[in-house]
């Protein structure tokens, strides 16, 4: 699997993503600068976490229009899998590859802690190494992570099975208390129509190695390696 990680000014999880990808694939991913017009042939494109362009205007808004994103959008529409983590999720919504918006956390606070997530479906290229309904522990680190979409869009996402992860308690019950940031319907991550684009606020790459005190995130990269050429 050939992966490319897009690096924006202000990205800070690009190397974490690269380490997790290399551990899973045995290949060093291409690091692609946001100003590049060209993108290598990639089986997977990762938009990493961070604070691209200092979160100016809105988180992800500037990055969504950077030169390399024109190519990312084209590839994503052509079926190339794209994984957007945290700021990457924000960029995907601003680029309209995913519906909705990530808004300021309901608490107004930057939240940095591990959370529990329920794997809503395992029949995706990103999640088939997880069990259906499995509860996983991923870290979050964001201030703009409150997922918002209008009710019709939320109903459509639910109806089409496009909710990837929900915030839950450690037993897997989706509760208001387990929702760290005020996200609509506890949504932590969503898919596009074809299930090839995933955006999520929690960081799988930050718990993908025992040295980081957990490996729940590694299964996502393992799933991708098995699913993609």
């Amino acid at each position: 699997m050939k992966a490319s990680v897009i690096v924006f000014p202000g990205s800070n999880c690009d190397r974490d993503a690269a380490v997790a990808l290399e551990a899973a694939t045995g290949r060093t991913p291409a690091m692609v600068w946001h100003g590049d017009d060209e993108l290598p042939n990639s089986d997977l494109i990762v938009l990493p976490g961070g604070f691209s362009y200092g979160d100016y205007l809105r988180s992800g808004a500037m990055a969504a229009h950077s030169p390399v994103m024109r190519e990312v959008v084209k590839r994503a529409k052509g079926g190339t899998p794209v994984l957007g983590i945290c700021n990457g999720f924000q960029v995907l919504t601003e680029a309209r590859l995913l519906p909705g918006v990530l808004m300021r956390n309901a608490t107004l606070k930057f939240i940095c802690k591990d959370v529990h997530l329920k794997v809503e479906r395992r029949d995706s290229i990103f999640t088939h190494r997880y069990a259906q309904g499995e509860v996983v522990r991923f870290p979050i680190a964001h201030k703009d992570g409150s997922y918002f979409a209008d009710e019709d869009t939320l109903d459509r996402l639910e109806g089409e099975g496009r909710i990837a992860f929900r915030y839950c308690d450690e037993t897997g019950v989706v509760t208001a208390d387990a929702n760290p940031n005020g996200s609509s319907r506890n949504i932590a991550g969503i898919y596009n129509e074809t299930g090839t684009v995933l955006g999520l606020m929690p960081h799988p790459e930050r718990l993908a190695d025992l040295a980081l005190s957990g490996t729940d995130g590694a299964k996502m990269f393992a799933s991708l390696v098995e699913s993609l050429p």
Partner: protein
Amino acid sequence: MKARITITLKQGVLDPQGKAIQGALHALGFGTVGNVRQGKYIEVEVAESDPAKAREAVERMCEQLLANTIIENYAYELEAA
């Protein structure tokens, strides 16, 4: 020309920052303060003397970048720079 652009959250979109500002105003003793909504104000100079063309450009700027029309409305005024 200069465009004075105001970006506001749509009705029904939660605004925790507005709520916090409201709380702070109450704490300062402004007991008459009701609902508070916050937004953005942006000034853009456009090298264009035809108001119709400037208007069209500003609207495209708002749609493509300055506002996220899923959650935000925008309004603007044009004036000779």
